């Protein structure tokens, strides 16, 4: 029996606007095993970040259930939620805007400890224990001790992202949502952070939800990948299966659009035309219908459901089912 840490069922998040509801997250369901990494991939505006945040209840879902360690977190009280948050943390995308510029590195890393009153001590003892924990964690994420009293503006992007990682780790969470943690970084720094995240996962048995638009990155780090388009998961499969045998036309188009850094390795797939349609008041048909190179009649008969077509390989497409 698989050890499930997270189960998401029919999660929906609609944002009300004057023009109608924005379907940011529409009927997303998946389960995630402990110690694994789920990559959520998609283009801007497909709802991947909103999904990540709704799972942590940083945004209240419109409807749906999120079971974390067997408990439906959408139904718990705020007080209980605060306790649960210790186990579920997030690393934000932009290390330049997600850190308070007026706090030092040590204050930033220690903030969650203070908020959750983790250390049961007071006065000098509390200070000393906090300092120990912060320094210990700074070593873990590869920040030099001399940066203890530095401010974020003194640091480069890679180091700032290490602070973000340290902040997420200090509460010893079980699940971390990584929301585009490397997309603001240069490639050589990006590789350093990806390696760090992988090492930490091995050491601490962490479970990651890794949100990104970069398919090469997700291919490297994830065990399983969910491809999102306009608020819904259109395909979900183990990483190798998805890259070798993509079924949904959108996944195929995404994969063939990635520029590969090798000569004559261009995956000459079709370049899909058109752009993502507005997520407001969506018609009752396949979300990808207007851009789809196949688009058969079945696609117009309502939104296709995510179905298991091969063991572990789910796809929501009228034509390929």
């Amino acid at each position, binding site marked *: 029996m698989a050890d499930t840490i997270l189960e998401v069922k029919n999660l929906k998040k609609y944002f009300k606007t004057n023009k109608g509801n924005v379907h940011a997250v529409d009927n997303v369901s998946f389960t995630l095993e402990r110690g694994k990494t789920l990559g959520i991939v998609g*283009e*801007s505006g497909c709802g991947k970040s909103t999904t990540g945040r709704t799972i942590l209840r940083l945004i209240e879902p419109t409807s749906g259930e999120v079971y974390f360690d067997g408990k439906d977190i959408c139904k718990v009280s705020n007080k209980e939620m605060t306790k649960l948050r210790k186990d579920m943390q997030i690393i934000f995308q932009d290390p330049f805007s997600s850190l308070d510029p007026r706090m030092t590195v040590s204050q930033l890393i220690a903030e969650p400890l203070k908020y959750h009153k983790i250390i049961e001590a007071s006065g000098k003892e509390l200070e000393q224990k906090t300092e120990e924990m912060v320094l210990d964690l700074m070593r873990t994420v590869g920040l030099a001790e001399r940066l203890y009293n530095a401010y974020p503006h003194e640091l*480069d992007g*890679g180091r700032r992202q290490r602070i973000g990682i340290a902040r997420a780790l200090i509460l010893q969470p079980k699940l971390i949502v990584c929301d585009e943690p490397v997309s603001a970084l*240069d*490639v*050589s*720094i*990006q*590789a*350093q952070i*990806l*390696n760090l995240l*992988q090492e930490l996962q091995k050491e601490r048995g962490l479970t990651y939800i890794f949100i990104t*638009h970069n*398919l*090469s*990155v997700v*291919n*490297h*780090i994830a065990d399983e990948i969910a491809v999102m388009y306009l608020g819904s998961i259109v395909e979900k499969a183990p*990483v*190798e299966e998805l*890259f070798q045998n993509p079924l949904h036309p959108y996944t195929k*188009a*995404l*994969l*063939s*659009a*990635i*520029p*590969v*850094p*090798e*000569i004559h*390795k*261009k995956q000459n797939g079709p*370049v*899909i*035309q058109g*752009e993502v349609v507005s997520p407001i008041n969506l018609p009752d048909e396949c979300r990808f219908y207007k851009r789809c190179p196949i688009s058969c009649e079945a696609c117009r008969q309502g939104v296709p459901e995510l179905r298991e077509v091969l063991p572990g390989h789910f796809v929501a497409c009228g034509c390929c089912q």
Partner: protein
Amino acid sequence: MKLNGKNGKSDTNLEQIREKTDLAVSVENLVVHYETSSETVEAVNSISFSLKKKRTLGLVGETGAGKTTAMLALMNMVPNPPGRIIEGEIRVNGLDMRKLTPAQLQHVRGSEIAMIFQDPMTSLNPVLTIGEQIGESILLHRNISKAEALKETQKLLERVGIDPERYGEYPHQFSGGMRQRVGIAIALACNPSVLIADEPTSALDVTIQAQILQMMRKLKEENDTSMILITHDLGVVAEMCDDVAVMYAGHIVEYGTLEEVFNKTKHPYTEGLFNSLPNINNRVEKLQPIQGLMPDPANLPKGCAFAERCPYASEACRENPPETHSFSDTHLAACTAYQDPDFRIGRNK
């Protein structure tokens, strides 16, 4: 707009000073510094490269490597102060860009060399319609009426894949990909023979990036344009470029044809870049990042700027600036380690 017609006469002046050449761009020993009261940032340090007609040169490097500054210098557009072209020779279509008068420069920019900017969200003027922004350079450079300019604008819109009827709309009414198409239409307005594209697709989603790159390739072929493509994405380089220059801390560390730089890589930094990239065709257990950070361009070491992060560095590398070694007529690498004729980087073993 009352800009038309003024610039027609500078043409003759330009032809007198133009040297005959088959190079679209040639740059020799270009040095650009940003000078402030407290420090001097050595952004571009003695780089040389050339671009043959109808070719595409990829300029690769990480943030702060000096790519954009080098290209601004090419158009003699480095913001001054604090920027200053200290020395070097810059020729575009045989014209010495540093010796042109402001009026001549204005004529050359746009009609002979034009630029596509990185961020389509901020590079367009939000209070002018896209038609006005595209038409502006047509009116400025060509002696035609407003009605004719409008027709030209609509033709351009069609070429970049935008409905010509949308010429009266404002930038905020377009998506990111569409705005970048507008940026490309502006750059193409006067059929420049040299096009500089500064990270034209970095702000776009992959499927939109694929559309834009496909379109740029098509337009380049139709117009016989020579292009310099600035990017940090080696995948985009592989798809678009004929030649590649890799920049690090203001220097070109490796320079060669696409084939040479990708398959016969010589410089340890280029190798490091390849090893840092997760490759979709070849999943590895662990990436091999380049350790450390790029040195502060305001405080460059006296030896090789990459020595501190280089796995092959010796004492000589830290003491003296790197020597340039050539491996073929077209392939250069600035690396002292090649003094030893048997030296090979890991990638080539």
